[in-house]
């Protein structure tokens, strides 16, 4: 059966199997067979590079938001020199609207562990750090238990599955800071410091954790890896949208009847996702807008959604991005000014403060939006806001400034009338 039709799709990342989080159950379902194949089937997998090539061919686009081909990223690691090399797994999951990786921690942690170990073999990694946001304490404890079980079963540690490959896995807890989801900030945090993003270059593949080669991948990205190894790159790339293939965890929240995380092929039409998967709009209200993939992705009005599917190409054409595929749905009663002010408050609160355009820019955005929200704004403040976003975009160490600027730019452009209705006419002369 084609895994491309979402109506008949069978979940593979979080399949409905009871107690799948237990290693015995996972193994009964064929778990850790992909790892075994990679480590022992020399005919199929001649060397680590053959694994990198397969993953590259599958085109797993990074599920952390940037959508970069995972295998291609792996190929950037320099040749091994006998020193330590790291894989840092990004489970920071703090972008508003995003709540998908926790499903893997809770329901299928061994799929992720297996994927991370295969990645470690492919890149000749010596230690894997799994960084999980501190607020996910219950899930951190579940992950720590799963890691212990994997050690006990010989899937982690020395001579995994009796091969010569050894790797360790450490679960590191964050402590409350959205910025630590930015990859270099996460590295600083794993190193026990404040999460200040690093200037790139050098890129983490050259100088990552403790100055050593490091690759960063999202939890869901790595969880796709065993599926690719088990079923082949062709199987994976035939699922869902052509340029952004594979299973995808859709987090749907806001004004729908059945919010939650749904695993479906990539590229499901937005309106079907709302109407059929998430049970339609709450209280029979009309759809006003969606934010497709986390709070930083540009908002789309209901009238912009005809034929739009949840994949990078379609969303780009529509004027937004797939981001983390955490979709926030808003009904006709939503006060867009209030929503944008709250988003700006978030980014101001989370700016690490290293770069002036971001530290001051996010502050100004919030301040001006607060003024408009309180009815004291003037129409020209809207242009001032757009001007501030221009001063922020692309001028900072990390992309948080852009993430803060985009929602302001696009929400004002796409809902200008609602903002103007809240503003007084500009009456004061400019001096």
């Amino acid at each position, binding site marked *: 059966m084609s895994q491309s039709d979402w109506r008949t799709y069978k979940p593979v990342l979080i399949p409905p199997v009871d107690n799948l989080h237990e290693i015995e159950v996972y193994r009964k379902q064929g778990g850790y067979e992909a790892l075994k194949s990679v480590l022992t089937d020399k005919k199929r997998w001649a060397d680590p590079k053959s694994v990198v090539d397969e993953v590259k061919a599958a085109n797993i686009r990074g599920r952390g938001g940037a959508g970069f081909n995972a295998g291609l990223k792996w190929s950037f690691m320099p040749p091994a020199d006998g020193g330590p090399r790291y894989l840092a797994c990004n489970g920071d999951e703090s972008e508003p609207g995003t*709540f998908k990786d926790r499903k893997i921690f809770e329901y299928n942690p061994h799929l992720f562990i297996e994927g991370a170990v295969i990645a470690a073999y492919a890149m000749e990694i010596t230690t894997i750090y799994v960084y999980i946001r501190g607020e996910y304490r219950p899930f951190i404890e579940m992950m720590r238990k799963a890691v212990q079980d994997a050690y006990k079963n010989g899937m982690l540690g020395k001579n995994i599955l009796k091969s010569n490959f050894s790797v360790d896995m450490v679960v590191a807890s964050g402590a409350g800071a959205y910025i630590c989801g930015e990859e270099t900030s996460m590295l600083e945090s794993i190193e026990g410091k*404040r999460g200040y993003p690093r200037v790139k270059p050098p890129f983490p593949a050259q100088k990552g954790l403790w100055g050593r080669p490091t690759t960063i991948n999202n939890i869901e990205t790595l969880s796709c890896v065993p599926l690719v190894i088990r079923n082949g790159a062709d199987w994976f790339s035939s699922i869902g949208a052509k340029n952004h293939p594979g299973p995808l965890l859709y987090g749907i929240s*806001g004004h729908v009847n059945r919010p939650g995380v749904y695993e479906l092929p990539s590229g499901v039409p937005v309106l079907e996702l709302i109407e059929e998967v998430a049970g339609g709009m709450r209280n029979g209200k009309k759809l006003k807008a969606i934010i497709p993939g986390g709070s930083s992705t540009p908002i789309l009005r209901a009238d912009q959604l005809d034929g739009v599917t949840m994949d990078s190409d379609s969303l780009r054409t529509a004027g937004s991005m797939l981001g983390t595929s955490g979709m926030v749905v808003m009904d006709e009663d939503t006060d867009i000014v209030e929503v944008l002010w709250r*988003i700006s408050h978030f980014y101001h609160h989370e700016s690490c403060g290293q770069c002036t355009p971001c530290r001051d820019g996010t502050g100004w955005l919030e301040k001006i939006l607060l003024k408009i929200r309180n009815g004291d704004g003037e129409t020209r403040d809207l242009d001032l806001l757009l001007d501030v976003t221009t001063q922020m975009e692309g001028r900072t160490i990390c992309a948080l400034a852009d993430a803060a600027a985009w929602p302001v730019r696009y929400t004002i452009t796409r809902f200008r009338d609602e903002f103007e209705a809240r503003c007084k006419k500009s009456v004061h002369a400019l001096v």
Partner: protein
Amino acid sequence: MTYEFTKEDLDRIESIKKEYPEVKATTLQVLWVAQDRFGHVDADVQRLVAATLELPEAHVHGVASFYTQYYKQKMGKHVLDVCTCLSCQLCGGYDILNHLEKKLGIKAGETTKDGMFSLQQVECLGACGYAPMLQVTNGEFVNHLTEEKVDHLLDKLRNGEDPEHEMMEMPLRKQKENP
């Protein structure tokens, strides 16, 4: 006040040190050990952590102050972190916060006189599909809040019961089983 780690804490710290190539990297994790033990990491606890790890106090303080989950002062017995960010905002997070403020007679950022509850307004906790929600003392998430559910939670906590872990549904399975 002077604080001391127990033998058990020190063992935990030793095993954490083995997970990292250098001691500095253990700072966040050891601050957690300290907060689990003392309920906060005020200036004195930060000094203890610095002394235990033989790291500069300025470093430990810098880290403790950067991350929002470390309590830099003594808090109530239960800390209620109410999310008001995006999806929670849309689904009534501010109403829940308002209800709690009235119910507890304090504002967000304050602690009740009996030291039982601290109330905080927080940013996205990664539970957007289960909005509105709150987290109890950096631990369990309490989802799909209504005023009744909040009242019930307060009673439970006052009676010394912990909130249980709410398994959030795997929606597809539900769908498949009851089409």
